[in-house]
């Protein structure tokens, strides 16, 4: 199998997916195709539907329209063997409060055909997960780590994480991100994680999907996004007209001879075009993911 075919093979395909909660469309004809071996960061405002998207992708939540195919199977009727390949960490994982951590781990392990005990032990030591304590006495961060260990133990081909670092302190977050990278190394595993913290995404993800108004407004390589979305400070010799607009424009502010325009279709030749068309000087500002996200949402 050549690299080409591997790359175009989708581990998750959602087409035209809609989900309504009491009449309101949380997911609205959404399409998302995640290639194998990528780390996809799902970015969206709080309440945008990231959790719903992930639950629909895994067949936990029922969709009202569209199709979801995960690991080549329809998500709603996932087989047991497909689930052997999936690891899921929900947003606020709840486990059995009265059970000891080591028992929960052993219990989860009993479900899977393949369980890497050495890996689990390493993670438990590295993350200082208290084995002898009961799950009900763990803090939120420790619960998150435990849920992550449980999801990693069977070394799934697809790892789905819902706001995995929201409750972790910065050093724990860094450690977690390191593990995310480790697992993804070599392009064998696919990871999808949702977050509203852009800085984590920037480090770890190679693709970003932006969920806005129930649909994916951007899905592609993060580098591409940063290459294409730029803010331009334009100073013209003449007053700029009101109909002044640029291709792929998201927002603009015109004050006399100066304009601040954000475009999502930036190309290297654009500066020269603007300069010649409008007799202006163009200063190109790079936007990081947070600024891009804000620009896209304020539009």
């Amino acid at each position, binding site marked *: 199998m050549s690299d080409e075919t591997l790359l175009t093979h989708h581990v998750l395909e959602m087409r035209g997916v809609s989900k309504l909660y009491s009449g309101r469309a949380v997911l609205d004809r959404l399409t998302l195709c995640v290639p194998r071996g*990528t*780390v996809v960061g799902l970015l969206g405002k709080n309440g945008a539907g990231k959790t719903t998207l992930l639950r629909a992708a895994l067949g936990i939540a029922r969709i009202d329209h569209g199709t979801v195919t995960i690991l080549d199977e329809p998500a709603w009727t996932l087989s047991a063997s497909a689930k052997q390949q999936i690891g899921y960490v929900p947003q606020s994982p709840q486990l059995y409060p009265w059970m000891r951590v080591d028992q929960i781990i052993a219990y989860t392990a009993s479900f899977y055909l393949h369980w890497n005990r050495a890996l689990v032990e390493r993670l438990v030591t590295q993350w200082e997960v208290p084995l002898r304590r009961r799950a009900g006495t763990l803090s939120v961060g420790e619960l998150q780590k435990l849920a992550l260990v449980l999801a990693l133990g069977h070394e799934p081909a697809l790892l789905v994480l819902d706001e995995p670092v929201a409750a972790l302190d910065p050093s724990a977050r*860094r450690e977690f*991100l*390191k593990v995310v*990278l480790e697992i*993804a*190394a*070599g*392009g064998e595993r696919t990871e999808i994680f949702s977050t509203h913290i*852009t*800085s984590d995404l*920037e*480090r*770890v*993800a*190679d693709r970003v999907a932006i969920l806005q108004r129930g649909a994916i407004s951007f899905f592609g390589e*993060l*580098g*591409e996004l*940063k*290459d294409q979305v730029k803010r331009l400070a334009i100073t013209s010799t003449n007053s700029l007209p009101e109909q002044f607009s640029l291709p792929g424009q998201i927002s603009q502010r015109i004050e006399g001879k100066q304009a601040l325009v954000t475009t999502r279709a930036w190309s290297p030749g654009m500066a020269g075009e603007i300069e010649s068309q409008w007799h202006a000087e163009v200063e190109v*500002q*790079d*936007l*990081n*993911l*947070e*600024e891009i996200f804000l620009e896209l949402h304020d539009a």
Partner: protein
Amino acid sequence: MAADFLFQVFPTSGLPIYRQLVDQVRRHVASGRITSGDFLPSVRQVALELEVNAMTVSKAYSLLERDGVVELVRGHGMRIAKRLPASDTLEERQRQLAPLVEQLLAEAYQLSLSPTQVQNLLARAIKERNGK
């Protein structure tokens, strides 16, 4: 060579990580910190030490390879290539340098340096570089 001695990336900057890596490699080559024949650290090593996605690093390396700055040596990794003659025309290359020249002149103006003084500065720098 250790990756974090060579590179410093800012994931939250507006510049994509791969571009930062490409720029830094070019800068190191230009300043002489790494010369032709040196090997760049492996993709895996860079990804691990800088804690970034390996595909990003791999993309940077492919771009550098495409531009002829590095070449792939089987079994060893990426090696800085010998200085190949530039593929762009003279005018193109000069135009690429133009923004930096303008920046240099703007700074010199701020510092109240005369054109002669700037030219002397340039001559001295070139002599130093050729001497190395």
